[in-house]
């Protein structure tokens, strides 16, 4: 079980959280302007990397807020957690 540091509540066990899938996928701002391929990419296509993965989590049984997390998918080690809207830490 992971120990996840919620940016708002601190370190808590994994079963207080719900995963929300890959982070930093923006919904097209004008949905009617994009074609099927762009919609497919937004809805279904995922990076699924073996290595650093930016993902969303929600502290469901805590503050209830979404936040982002950078985790290594081979070791499951969490590199950083950060509020939604911030840049991915290793992208700077």
């Amino acid at each position, binding site marked *: 079980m992971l120990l996840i540091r919620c940016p708002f509540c601190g370190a808590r066990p*994994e079963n207080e959280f719900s995963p929300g899938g890959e982070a930093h996928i923006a919904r097209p701002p004008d949905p009617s302007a994009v074609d099927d391929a762009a919609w497919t990419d937004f809805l279904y296509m995922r990076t699924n990397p073996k290595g650093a993965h930016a993902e969303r989590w929600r502290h469901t049984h805590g503050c209830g807020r979404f936040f982002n997390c950078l*985790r290594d998918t081979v070791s499951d080690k969490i590199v950083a957690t950060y509020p939604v809207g911030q840049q991915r830490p290793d992208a700077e």
Partner: protein
Amino acid sequence: MRFSFATLLRQAFTGNAWPEQWRSPEPKSAYDVVIVGAGGHGLATAYYLASEHGVRNVAVLEKGWLGGGNTGRNTTIIRSNYLQDASAALYEHALKLWEGLAQTLNYNVMYSPRGVLMLAHTEHDVRVFRRHVHANRLAGIDNEWLTPEQSRQFCPPLNVSRDLRYPVLGAALQRRGGVARHDAVAWGYARAASTLGVDIVQNCEVTAIRRDANGAVTGVQTTRGPIAARKIAVVAAGHTSVVLAMAGLRLPLESYPLQALVSEPVKPVLPCVVMSNTIHAYISQSDKGELVIGAGTDAYLSYSQTGGLHIVTHALEAICELFPTFRRLRMLRNWGGIVDVTPDRSPIIGLTPVPGLFVNCGWGTGGFKATPGSGHAFAATVGRGEPHPIVAPFALDRFRTGRLIDEAAAAAVAH
């Protein structure tokens, strides 16, 4: 060497060592088809390419050892009672091949049609499973509805008491479903393919996919040197996203650890396979006597080939509730495999936007049962360069057209 009673007798009396079951050649510099991944699906693809499509200049590349991924880690359940017509056709195609597979390969794959019992614990389960039963019967696939008492008669150790937190309200039974020996499936296909001239190259990891100016594939770069091929078939299960990223492709896949465990061996106590999607557990007994128990996937994407202990604890709590007699059994081993899950819980089989590059992936938590059918239809797809009719609905394109094949009810946990 062909296996028969006569060869068994001769080997027993002469004391000769059994020959190697498949060749382990150095990779050649070029092949007609390169298959990435020597699991059950990849080896079956190679075998049917060689035996039915006359394509024998084939290499199967494996980064680890043969059958060491999900083929050797699954809980070996076989059934075909899926809801949608396209899935039922695909899994039934596989089930028909299972029935004659030991004879076809001249290798005992220990297919045992002992029945798969899928338990319903809520009113919603009951309706969903009855709908499955009706859909299957219309498609000519055996599946029947049992009351709790009939379920207990079919599987005597099952607890059908009304006092359970989630009592058994009934079950769907597919009598032709069952189990097979997973390693024997990989070994049998490997031996048969190797005999037909297919090169199986282990400890050979693909590190890049090479393409020409038009984007078509020309070969792969591996840890054992470059290999040229005009057709590349990727059958890499949980690592499919990693391999196809080498060709610049993104897929609708996420990889999760799925866990299983076995108990200490005991005398025969469980006559069939029992699955429960609602309380997250499935169980059967191997011929060695171990209870083989499947748990759920972890909640988050990972390539760790382990999993959270709370996931298996959850499955064992469910097993102890359903089978109170198993409470004092000790567990021997626990492991994880990486499964590639699609949004609609159906596999992706067929062509990709890259010319010459084919993919067979997305089997999620339940690919073992489809091994022969998947390999058979995928071999036809690769051999002819166009989708076999059975796998045509499973094309990657369905995520753009919206023609999804929703099997989430069939495959929520136990597939």
